[in-house]
């Protein structure tokens, strides 16, 4: 057992569990202080941006959906937004509402998975979801049923739950009838109650005192909580910029220890996207029910403790269920399932809120619609520098813990961020090196 008294050690986790994708973490301690934290991402780089070059402008929704099995809708929606921006086409609000409904399905599915199966076991002293299920069977069943409701929305609108096939530039290949969606309303009424029960459950967990001081960045969507669209982004530090200026404000850099790029805000440094950022910047845009439930769960209008992200995710789960129910109850099929989109030589920009945070796409199109260049900035690579910074502080304050406990605490801390390593190629294994 090694304590702060023997001041140098290495924490190493060679394959992080309960995260999406493959990666490791390495922590070096010298003279009783953390000197280096590296998230080592060893999934191979995925080259999506390169192989989009030369493809048709109609293809990115299907191609980029393959980046991730958990958040394909996010890739499809950011791709569509960027290409439609390049081509100067406006989308029927009824189509936009259907996109938001599809996106709510993905939020419900992704948040239920993370809250119940990946994150909650950490707070209850279990090794994983299996142990949780052995002692809390009905709770895990509730989580799985919630996830299933999300999948059912994705199947009804997207054609299937994984990598939906019904999304196209301009809208959808086919839109559902109200009769096809109405059975989902009953399921969503149950899911809304289950979401509120989820929030009450996680609100009772014990959370370490630990606040982050990063600048928070999220999409702004006029008049509503940001999910599916938005031409602007705003930050907790007062930034407010058009999506076309994203690359003026965000730069990505190679780091030697990772296949993912590190992003930072120009002149400001590391920042964070995701549920905490969305919540802090858009609390007033939540529904009254979600706001009230958040307050009852002990959250204020701002939450900067990443351990409480499970509570914030549960608030968003409630909101997504309520929003999906509202969209279904007011649904009228669009006059046409899609807008005809004619290509033109232009650059287009799109940014939507994936479950893990802002996802940016840019496409440079030739006059015939051929993609000349593509740029994709996923949420986890935006958060990677901030995660390393937070872990350094977190470990430094807990060096008196024996190595196994400290390693376990670090893994839990990483899961706070729900990193999607596959998206970032882009993640995790923990390594604490003390000398």
């Amino acid at each position, binding site marked *: 057992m090694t304590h702060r008294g023997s001041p140098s050690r290495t924490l190493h986790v060679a394959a992080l*569990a*309960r*995260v*999406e*994708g*493959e990666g490791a973490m390495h922590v070096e301690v010298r003279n009783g202080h953390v000197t280096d934290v590296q998230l080592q991402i060893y*999934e*191979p780089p*995925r080259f999506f941006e390169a192989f989009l070059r030369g493809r048709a402008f109609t293809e990115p929704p299907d191609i980029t959906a*393959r980046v991730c*099995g958990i958040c394909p809708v996010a890739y499809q929606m950011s791709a569509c937004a960027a290409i439609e921006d390049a081509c100067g086409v406006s989308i029927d609000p009824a189509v936009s509402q259907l996109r938001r409904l599809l996106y709510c399905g993905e939020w419900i599915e992704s948040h239920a*998975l993370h809250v119940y*199966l*990946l994150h909650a076991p950490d707070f209850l002293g279990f090794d*994983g*979801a*299996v142990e949780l*299920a*052995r002692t809390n*069977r009905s709770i*895990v*069943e509730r989580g*799985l049923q919630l*996830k*299933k409701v999300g*999948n059912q929305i994705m199947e009804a609108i997207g054609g299937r*739950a*994984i990598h939906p096939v019904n999304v196209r530039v301009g809208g959808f290949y086919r839109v559902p009838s109200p009769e096809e969606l109405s059975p989902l309303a009953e399921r969503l009424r149950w899911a809304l109650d289950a979401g509120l029960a989820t929030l009450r459950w996680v609100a009772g967990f014990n959370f370490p005192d630990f606040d982050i001081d990063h600048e928070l960045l999220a999409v702004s969507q006029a008049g509503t909580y940001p999910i599916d669209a938005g031409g602007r982004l705003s930050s907790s530090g007062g930034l407010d910029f058009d999506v076309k200026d994203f690359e003026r404000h965000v730069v990505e850099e190679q780091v030697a220890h990772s296949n993912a790029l590190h992003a930072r805000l120009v002149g400001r440094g590391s920042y964070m996207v995701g549920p905490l950022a969305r919540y802090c910047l858009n609390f007033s845009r939540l529904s009254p029910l979600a706001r009230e439930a958040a307050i009852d769960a002990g959250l204020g209008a701002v939450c900067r403790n990443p351990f409480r992200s499970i509570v914030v995710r549960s608030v968003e789960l409630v909101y997504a269920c309520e929003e999906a129910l509202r969209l279904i109850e007011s649904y009228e099929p669009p006059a046409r399932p899609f807008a005809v989109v004619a290509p033109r030589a232009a650059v287009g920009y799109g940014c939507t809120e994936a479950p893990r945070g802002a996802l940016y796409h840019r496409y440079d199109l030739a006059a015939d619609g051929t993609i000349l260049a593509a740029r994709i900035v996923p949420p986890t690579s935006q958060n990677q520098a901030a995660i390393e910074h937070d872990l350094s502080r977190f470990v430094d304050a807990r060096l008196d813990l024996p190595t196994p406990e400290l390693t376990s605490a670090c893994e839990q801390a990483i899961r706070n961020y729900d990193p999607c390593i*596959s998206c970032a190629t882009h993640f995790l294994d923990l390594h604490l090196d003390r000398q």
Partner: protein
Amino acid sequence: MSCVDVLPHKVVVIGVGNPYRGDDGVGPEAARRVRAAAPGWVEVMEHDGEPAGLLDAWDAADLAIVVDAVRSSGVDPGHVHRVEITESRYPASTPTVSSHGIDPGDVVELARALGRLPRRLVLYGIEGANFAPGLGLSTEVGASVNGLVTRVLNEVAADVP
């Protein structure tokens, strides 16, 4: 005849894997070939291994056969393991290949904890050689698929009451 007697016998074959990761695609490839040859009442599906989806896929099945790529040390590529899940844990000696948040063995144990195992669950694990990004099976794994499909079809036929 009671209504219990007319309940259909449910058999499901699930090919798990990612065809874009080399030999990890053997499960879906085997499922496609089983679908072409099996009686129409056998449900056959290709699956990415997502936990909740697997529990639903084998829900209330009398026999569920899961075909997946595996990687263990010291075993030749193309070798087919057969494991019937009973009271024992998912065997650690047949680690599957997954980039999902939950290990496939944990899915079996999750189902057991939730009382959602099928009546019989049989796993066929095919020893893979190459899991790098890209389409296509290695020569050794490709050569083992027909024999594997025959074993699955025989297992289905033998289970009919």
